[in-house]
């Protein structure tokens, strides 16, 4: 009997083949009827109904796109790699900015019950706002579509990081704080050598949630601001009625999102500990 992993892989592949097969079959154009109507003959037998492209077409396009992902043939014809790179760049820029605010502020809120009580109402009001609702305001104030997209990423990824950091810091075990106190560690050293590693798994969980949300939001944000990025690419191909490219880019969004999540999962593993 093969190992569980091998069996799972085989099953996965068979599901894929089955799904692709069904998809391929369901998108075949119907057999041309023996007697075309006069109208159909006038139209050259062309189908009236537009169809979802079959997987074979998507794979063919994927092959073509991925074998030259970084070509640049003008504003509306850039390689998929360039479009994804724009999106990843915006996500990371907004995300890093959010980290720079959320981690120190989360520490402050976590360590000070006063700050927690003072700031909590604002956090609770701001947190449920859809990040895209900020877009008009951002566009008006910043007057730059690219920076506005980055701002939207910033505002959507800040909350999980902020709340998780505050929660992690506030719930560090008193025993460990006592260890720091009996060893006469100062505030800064206690924060860096005891509280930070103790709260790190919780903080990383927040960061992982944030990167997931940021990747969801960037697609919508780029559909709005246009110009570059994978979100714009999807919308542009829709306007071109190139469904094959739409399906291909949907898949690429999934793949990049998975890679981002896996990177954070790796980081999470590094700071994990068991009590």
């Amino acid at each position, binding site marked *: 009997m093969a190992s569980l992993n091998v069996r799972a892989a085989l099953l996965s592949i068979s599901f894929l083949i089955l799904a692709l097969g069904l998809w391929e079959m369901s998108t075949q154009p119907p057999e041309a009827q023996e007697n075309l109507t006069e109208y159909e003959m006038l139209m050259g037998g062309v189908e009236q109904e537009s169809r979802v492209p079959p997987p074979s077409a998507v794979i063919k396009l994927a092959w073509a796109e991925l074998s030259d992902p970084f070509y640049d043939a003008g504003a509306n014809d850039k390689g998929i790699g360039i479009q994804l790179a724009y999106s990843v760049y915006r996500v990371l820029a907004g995300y890093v900015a959010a980290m720079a605010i959320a981690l120190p502020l989360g520490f402050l809120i976590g360590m000070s019950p006063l700050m927690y009580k003072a700031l909590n109402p604002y956090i609770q009001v701001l947190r449920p706002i859809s990040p895209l609702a900020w877009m008009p305001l951002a566009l008006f104030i910043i007057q730059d579509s690219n920076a506005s997209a980055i701002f939207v990423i910033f505002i959507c990824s800040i909350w999980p990081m902020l709340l998780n950091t505050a929660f992690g810091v506030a719930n560090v075990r008193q*025993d*460990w704080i*006592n*260890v720091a*106190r*009996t*060893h*006469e*560690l100062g505030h800064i050293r206690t924060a860096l*050598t*005891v509280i930070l*590693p*103790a709260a*790190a798994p919780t903080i990383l969980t927040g960061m992982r949630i944030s990167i997931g949300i940021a990747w969801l939001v960037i697609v919508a944000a780029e559909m709005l601001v246009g110009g570059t990025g994978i979100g714009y690419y999807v919308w542009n191909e829709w306007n071109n009625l190139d469904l094959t490219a739409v399906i291909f880019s949907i898949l690429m969004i999934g793949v990049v999102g998975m890679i981002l999540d896996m990177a954070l999962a790796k980081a999470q593993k590094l*700071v994990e*500990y*068991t*009590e």
Partner: protein
Amino acid sequence: MSKSFLEVDGLSKVYPDGQGGELTVFEDIRFSLEKGEFVCIIGHSGCGKSTILNVLAGLDEATSGNMVMNGKEVKGPSLERGVVFQNYSLLPWKTTLNNIVFAVQARWPSWSKQQVREHSERYLKMVGLDHALQRKPSQLSGGMRQRVSIARAFATQPELLLLDEPFGALDALTRGVIQDELVKIWEETRQTVFMITHDVDEAILLSDRIFLMSNGPNARIAESVKVDIPHPRARATIFQNTHYHKTRDYLVDYLINRSDSALPDLDGTPRVIEPATGNNTPGDKKTDSDAADKAVNA
């Protein structure tokens, strides 16, 4: 009067009792420790032993009273007072070695990496853990974790070492083994130790004196029992000493029959008891009246 190494004077702790009133856990705690002494404190739960230890450690504050160590008032936590907690309190993200290194670096910030490491390894070797340097606490048994914790406390060479029921969470067999190790380390280092325990045998094996607390609330340290058994001691042979049984009988009798009503001397210091020499009649009126006479004469 020459000052002792540690003088504790009139310590008390009052908590709100949750119904608008106040609850005095312990009051007027007076005792002194000499340099190099090993002292255990025994009492029923609720008498505030742990609070006394936390106050000594600087992790808790007494409602009144003061403590002077080496002529300096004790205030806040300090590296001069090392603590071994009942639940080990190791940092779980650090390896065994790094848990010690962490403490040694805090104690001697100017030491080189090499020096810190050698010092840390020496103390881990003392507790027989030199084979587990790179393991995380979660990969160690309870007994091994407590050994690391003991090594960490001894490695920082504090003036006073506070042990809060260090073996409370261990099974009897492991407990015995680590008691022997503690005896060994103590014979090597002659640290001044103040330790909480529930275990009469453990107290006799380890201490020079045993403080007996009366029951809370309003608990006091009623008696200070001398353990007249020569060092070095060993768990395997200590019961052959006749003083061992006298001391043990005395302690058990106190805990079962007298801890409810026991009181210190009139001046507030614990009555000095020497079960080995027969001075074990604190309940009789003689000592009481002696102290009363003194008080009247004074």
